[in-house]
């Protein structure tokens, strides 16, 4: 929570990009999440590895995997 609060307050001082300036930010390849076509890769990684979550796959439940 401390890290998030620090980021919240400090990064707000970054340059504000206006809506009409977001032509690059709005490119489909710039989206800040995994692509929908990556879901099956994320699924087998959850099955075969111990780590889950952190924006890199499902956070739990739904399978008998560790």
């Amino acid at each position: 929570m401390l890290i998030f609060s620090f980021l919240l307050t400090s990064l707000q001082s970054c340059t504000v990009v206006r809506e009409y300036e977001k032509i690059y930010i709005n490119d489909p390849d710039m989206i800040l999440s995994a692509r929908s076509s990556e879901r099956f890769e994320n699924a087998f990684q959850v099955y075969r590895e111990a780590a889950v979550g952190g924006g890199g796959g499902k956070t739990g439940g739904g399978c008998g995997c560790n």
Partner: protein
Amino acid sequence: MKYYLFGLFASLSLSIFSQNTDYKKRVLENTEIELLSSYYSQDGVHSVIGGGIGTEELTDATLSIILTTPLNDDDVLTIDAGVSAYTSASSSNINPYNSTGASGGEGDDDDDDEGRGRNNNANSAPTGTPWAASSGASRSDELFYLNASYSHSSESRNFIWNTHASVSNEYDYTSVGVGGGISKLFNEKNTEVSLNASAYFDTWRPIYPTELHEYSKYGNGFLNQGFFQGVTILDQNGNATSAYRPTGFSQHSQTNRNSYAVTLGFSQILTKRLQVSLSLDVLLQDGLLATPYHRIYFEDKPKFYIGNAASIPFYTDPRNQDVFRLADDVEQLPNNRFKLPVGLRANYYINEMLTLRTYYRYYYDDWGITSQTANVELPVKITRSFTLLPMYRYYKQTQADYFAPYNQHFSTEKYYTSDYDLSAFDSNQYGIGASYTDIFTKFKIGTFGLKTIDLRYNNYERSDGLNANIVTFGLKFIQN
């Protein structure tokens, strides 16, 4: 006349202005349907059902349909349904004994059958091996799942709340999940903060390895009943014995598994070309966290086998095709687990042809595992419609406190597993993808136009010998 024209112009301007103040862009303009399919295959030499040795050959085919539709200007409903069918040589060895001898010629070997008399004829004695699939019913299974989610955006589009529910089912496992969250955008939508929570309430219908299932069912007299009736058990020297007693085994009294997750998200546009996000999860699990059919063999216990005595000396070698060691127990793991993953994404728009997508995650849990994940993808726009996607992923993890390889656990331990998914390893994943986008959706099925076609291939190699390949194909349609 000029006053009349001025008045008309003024009234028209006012009318247009008032219409502009009523205009609100829909969160989602049109209904979208996405079809995703994949084919996955793997192989390795550390089957957890064989206690840490044996084939890990597995194939899986999956099909998903995702429907996303606007209910009105502010609300979006998403329905996600799918089916996954797998075939696994490893899972088949929950009951590893072939049908020819074990069932006296009858076909069904699944260990949930009532006990049947077994033929003591040496020519039809049951055999098995951790290095090949058996014909048991546990060789294949299907997973069905259904997820539904709903989101609502405020008038300003700066506040979004969402809720979701899910259900999935396979032969021995059912999951029900619920969750919800909120997101707040500010700083002219340059900053977003989100909070999500979810809970999964899962239930095992435990299946145990055949030899332990029979012991649990018949007690100390199990060698003369059910599956073992008339079956010869061998000791380490290949001599017949009746000394096999897995007294450490008992069926799990608790069969539920619950998972709880809270996720904090933060994203920030840093420049016109760079944006980053941070995701922190706090995860808790409780209940039956071990898998009921993962065999365990103790170093301090005698070894017992069914099959060909001549193959016992090279049991751990793939040359062994006709002898299977009887388990001492199944894996035992704590009934709670705390996980803390932190993920960071950074995407940079290099130029009209190149974009750099990166991801890093650090993971910690209280079973002794820490891991690091690093992922990089470099979309290359060959043309306005066609993009190539080379990608690379590296993963490294430490071993769980309760892990040991085949035959290296002791019966005095409280928790033990030989699941190599919980061992120390690193992995490399190389992939290539291609994406075609038709902005004008010229190809149509009914009122839906084809927007994108995606094709991905990845090769995954783990340092313990597991290797896998996955191909994913996707189509996205938008209603016109």
